[in-house]
């Protein structure tokens, strides 16, 4: 349909140039970079207008067009605040908004940004009022073509904002940095009051359920109230009969919220201490140990990212492929982990990452050899690994009673690990030879965690079990065990009051116990090798 009458209609209502283009449904960002010029071009090539005021303006513009680069005349007639966007899309309002931009404070290094807007809710009401009038005036007008305020905001304000903050504007899907301006109109709620008369049932319900709705007007409740609004009903309200009420006060930018999408560091940690929990160990709000793997790793990462100690707790998040007990070391290549950095300001250089690793390792309790940036998608691998991976452990065990297989001369003599014991353990199996598992266990939830976990019996598989004598320690032996994730190794060795069956003692018909346990290997490829970073 012809664009000219729509533009004229919108202008007569008091819309700005940008809003005229929005109601035309234009979606080309370039067009919005010079709204005024584009609107006037349409008017130029379309039907001449009857209104004297407009023709005067038109001739003024024609003159201007001769040197199009010249800045827009600030004293043009249409500098009254737009009744639809309430000035948000009008250059005259922007200097105040630019002043509110203080994003350099957080020191983001990224070159791009996406531009967000939280507009006063009454812009929804005003938009609806314009649409109702357009539909009434032009029967063929399609209300769905309206270009959203947020889009026009990006294409108009956003482009200028880019120059002010020295970053290039990009879409929210591409740029990791989102800068949102929160706008408030002082009379927002008063203006929305009319919805209570227009849609009484909705708001009566909401006020009755005050517990559920602490705020009467939300974006959603306003949208809901506007859905079935008719022009007749709206025109019955004071101030809305012949058009839209003028915008009496300035819309103010009350805050600017900038947030960078999280970044993730991936690595593997080696834990050398038997007095170090993986994460802070709290019992009834009291710390049980001074430190933790998490805190040791967080410390230099926070410093490099300029995160204040008080903010570490909510800015950094620790994730890992499982965990080990406080008194269990994690050796070999270490355990896969990742750290999520919320609202990061910069990407660390490979040198900085090396420094972080050095600082961690300096503690002598935890070693991290490499750290690299990983993607959010990679993290699923880490989580998946938690269930599917298998682990190899090394355990130091003690034989506490004579084996029923042994012929003992003196029952009071100290039990000794015999060659037979070693052979029996190394050949022990309760599965068929074709089974990839050598031993299948049934473990009840260990007594040591039963107070906080459900009582269940879990079936777990042992793939490898190799015992070795220790010539210098006749009562001791070592054990290398490769098991399915979730196997409780300590309980497999001592039996947990007979609640893990079979247990190691059954292989040699003697009482055995565990003295120390190390994780030797977590069989999971991490961080993924194909990572671009």
């Amino acid at each position, binding site marked *: 349909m012809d664009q000219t009458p729509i533009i004229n209609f919108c202008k007569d209502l008091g819309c700005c140039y940008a809003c005229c283009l929005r109601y035309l449904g234009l979606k080309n960002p370039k067009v919005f970079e010079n709204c005024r010029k584009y609107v006037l071009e349409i008017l130029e090539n379309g039907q001449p207008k009857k209104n004297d005021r407009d023709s005067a303006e038109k001739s003024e513009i024609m003159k201007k067009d001769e040197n199009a680069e010249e800045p827009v005349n600030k004293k043009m007639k249409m500098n009254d605040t737009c009744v639809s966007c309430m000035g948000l899309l009008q250059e005259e309002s922007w200097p105040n908004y630019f002043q509110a931009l203080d994003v350099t404070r957080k020191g983001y290094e990224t070159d791009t940004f996406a531009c967000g807007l939280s507009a006063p809710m009454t812009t929804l009401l005003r938009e609806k009022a314009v649409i109702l009038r357009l539909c009434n005036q032009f029967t063929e007008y399609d209300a769905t073509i309206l270009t959203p305020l947020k889009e026009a905001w990006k294409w108009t304000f956003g482009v200028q904002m880019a120059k002010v903050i020295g970053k290039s504007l990009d879409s929210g899907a591409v740029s990791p940095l989102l800068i949102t301006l929160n706008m408030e109109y002082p009379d927002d709620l008063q203006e929305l009051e009319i919805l209570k008369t227009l849609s009484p049932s909705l708001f009566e319900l909401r006020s009755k359920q005050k517990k559920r709705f602490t705020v009467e007007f939300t974006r959603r409740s306003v949208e809901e109230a506007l859905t079935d609004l008719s022009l007749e009903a709206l025109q019955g309200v004071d101030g809305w009969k012949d058009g839209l009420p003028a915008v009496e006060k300035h819309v103010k930018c009350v805050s600017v919220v900038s947030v960078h999408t999280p970044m993730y560091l991936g690595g593997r940690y080696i834990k*050398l201490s038997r007095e170090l929990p993986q994460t802070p160990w709290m019992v009834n709000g009291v710390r049980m140990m001074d430190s933790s793997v998490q805190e040791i790793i967080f410390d230099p990462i926070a410093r490099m990212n300029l995160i204040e100690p008080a903010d570490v707790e909510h800015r950094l998040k620790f994730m890992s492929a499982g965990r080990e007990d406080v008194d269990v070391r994690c050796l070999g290549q270490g355990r896969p982990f990742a750290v999520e950095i919320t609202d990061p300001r910069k990407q660390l250089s490979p040198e900085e990452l090396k420094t972080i690793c050095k600082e961690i390792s300096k503690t002598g309790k935890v070693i991290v050899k490499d750290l690299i940036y990983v993607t959010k998608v990679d993290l699923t691998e880490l989580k998946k690994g938690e269930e599917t991976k298998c682990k190899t452990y*090394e355990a*130091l065990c003690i034989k506490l009673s004579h084996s029923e297989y042994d012929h003992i001369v003196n029952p009071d003599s100290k039990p000794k690990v015999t060659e037979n014991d070693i052979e029996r353990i190394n050949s022990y199996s309760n599965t068929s030879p074709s089974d990839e598992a050598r031993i299948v266990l049934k473990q009840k939830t260990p007594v040591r965690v039963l*107070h906080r976990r459900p009582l269940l019996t879990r079936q777990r598989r042992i793939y490898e079990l190799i015992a070795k004598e220790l010539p210098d320690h006749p009562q001791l032996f070592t054990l290398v065990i490769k098991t399915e994730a979730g196997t409780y190794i300590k309980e497999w060795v001592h039996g947990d009051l007979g609640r893990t069956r079979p247990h190691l003692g059954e292989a040699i018909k003697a009482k055995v116990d565990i003295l120390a346990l190390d994780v030797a290997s977590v069989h999971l490829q991490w961080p993924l090798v194909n990572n671009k970073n």
Partner: protein
Amino acid sequence: MAFNILDSIPDIDNFKSYTDRYFSKRYILDVDGVKNNDIMIMFHSNRIALLSLAPSHYFFKKNDDYTINFTIGNIDRLSNTVKGKGKKGGQYLTPKSVICKIEYCDGTSYAVPSCMKGTLVEINEELVNNPALLKKLPDSDGFIAIILASIAVSEATKSELLAHDEYLKKLNSQNSDGKKD
């Protein structure tokens, strides 16, 4: 850098058993006024409690064959089930609740009360087929039941009952009293 599990060999001469590492033992003597009807409750540091018989219980002096019966009136302790972290649905126990009866061929029997308030979490089912465990390993694989109480109840019970050294003292004085008779 190589780390070896042999870095971690503890002092074996002072090695504590599984039970002594994690549990502290409490005793109650002459339960229900029956002489040497002595019960032992072992409290894990996480407040899980194991019910068993104290070494001074007359059960350990009698050598006749016995069975352990977990049906108490119309309550079947073996059908106890618990759900979730909160152990919902577990049988509620008062100190007087009988957990099992030890029955001899000659028709005599005696009841083992729980001696504490709490939720029955688990019965040692192994005792049904292998009742000898109770005699052989009363403070480990021969435990009778696992009971979970609130922190408050668990702490109160712990302080009410006799600690290990008090128990030994009391036994000694009982023995010397016996000699005087």
